């Protein structure tokens, strides 16, 4: 038996290329680490961290419910409504984008590339500017938050979903094509059933992110529990932060539980 085979037969060209890539990666890490100051623990850390944690551990229970409104429950409800609507809007709008950007559906590389570019563009658009645009359109409040989340989420959902479409089994599509289906029918009968579970799973995931994105929307007064959270953080009212966090954690846990159940049903 020939012993030459004991060595991997990779060509030297490939070896050099891999070596070069490795060198570049190492260089990037050196560059990144070099920009970091030395790690040191600050004098104030003990007092302040303990203040934060004692606040978090003694949440401001009163805040849970005020008879006259503007309490935790109302805030969470508002957040939930914003996130739900935002996700529904994004969920509907991302579908055409995803198919546009999937290169196994749109065979022309240029066209699917353009779809990918548009999705990238939406993704780099900062939430805060998205929100600003909609505040100009509909005024401050939850509605502008919904629109900002709805449009802003298209970028991520579209990207994840189009990649999922790219990875499906094309056999079933082929079978449909063979029966004489046009592309739309083929997608409807062969692609959609396959991608539906992951589509819904991405939606649920994004829903959860949108619930948490309330923090960012809070900065600009776009409604939800975010505004009280930002206010509490900026005056270091840790008890208030604690109760709000607890509220969000419980809400996210419930969503996660439900989405797990739904996903289990789907697959």
């Amino acid at each position: 038996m020939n012993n030459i085979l004991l060595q991997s037969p990779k060509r030297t060209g490939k070896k050099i290329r891999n070596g070069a890539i490795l060198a570049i990666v190492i260089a990037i890490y050196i560059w990144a680490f070099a920009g970091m100051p030395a790690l040191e623990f600050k004098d104030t850390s003990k007092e302040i961290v303990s203040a934060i944690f004692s606040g978090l551990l003694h949440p401001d229970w009163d805040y849970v419910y005020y008879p006259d409104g503007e309490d935790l429950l109302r805030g969470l409800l508002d957040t939930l409504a914003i996130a739900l609507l935002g996700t529904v809007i994004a969920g509907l709008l991302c579908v055409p984008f995803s198919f546009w950007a999937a290169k196994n559906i749109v065979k022309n590389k240029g066209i699917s590339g353009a779809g990918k570019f548009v999705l990238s563009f939406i993704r780099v658009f900062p939430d805060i500017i998205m929100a600003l645009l909609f505040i100009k359109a509909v005024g401050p409040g939850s509605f502008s938050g919904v629109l900002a989340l709805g449009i802003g989420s298209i970028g991520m959902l579209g990207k994840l979903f189009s990649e999922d479409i790219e990875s499906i089994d094309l056999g079933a599509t082929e079978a449909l094509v063979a029966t004489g289906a046009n592309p739309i029918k083929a997608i409807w009968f062969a692609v959609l059933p396959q991608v539906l579970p992951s589509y819904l799973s991405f939606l649920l995931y994004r829903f959860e992110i949108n619930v948490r994105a309330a923090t960012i929307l809070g900065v600009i007064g776009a409604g939800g529990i975010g505004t009280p959270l930002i206010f509490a953080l900026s005056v270091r009212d840790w008890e208030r932060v604690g109760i709000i966090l607890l509220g969000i954690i419980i809400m996210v846990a419930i969503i996660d539980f439900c989405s797990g159940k739904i996903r289990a049903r789907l697959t």
Partner: protein
Amino acid sequence: MIEFKNVSKVYPNGTKGLNNINLTMQKGEFIVVVGLSGAGKSTLLRSVNRLHEVSGGEIIVNGKSITKAKGRNLYEIRRDIGMIFQNFNLVKRSSVLRNVLSGRVGYHSTLRMMLGMFPQHDKELALKALDRVNILEKAYSRADELSGGQQQRVSIARALAQEAKIILADEPVASLDPLTTKQVMDDLKRINEELGITTVVNLHFIDLARQYATRIIGLRAGEVVFDGSVDEATDEKFAEIYGRPIQDEELMGVAK
């Protein structure tokens, strides 16, 4: 009737799938295509309904050139060709009935299909097709709950419901037990005889080929090396199709 005129197929990576094929398949024939793995059997079949684009030549299906057809015309030619895939190509997550019904989409408008509004007639047709392959009771099961043999039968039912004039079957009995194999082949044969549907089947089993075919086509390296009736397909001919120029590395230890 299917006519191959100087058909060639070169894959993007340079592999020659088909090399200047000239064949005429008559209406009502039951043709079995045999050949080694990689001989081009699948490529041949998939060129007929243009799942693969050929690189040269022309294929005429029932008088129309499928290689030149576009849009609606192409869809309509394909509608008349049913295909049974080796790995079934069912939508696993859809119900059996829906899979069978999907064979009917070529007959209706896109909008109607998107709304899932199949006429009652289609449903009956689909159920009848399922009944014919004896798995009617699975109509509302999800396709992935079925055993391999049952899935294969669903894919046959899909081709039946399509009311195609030609059926192409790519290794329809691989990984089926002998009994199911017989059932599937019998069924193809019966459809072929009863409805006069032209049937082209890729097979690995010589005995099955002899038993069911009216005509056998042998492929090797993308070329037709045998084309004749069952009687002409002697053991020697098979040996020629499969055997002689087997590369050394294709043989396992014992043969050495």
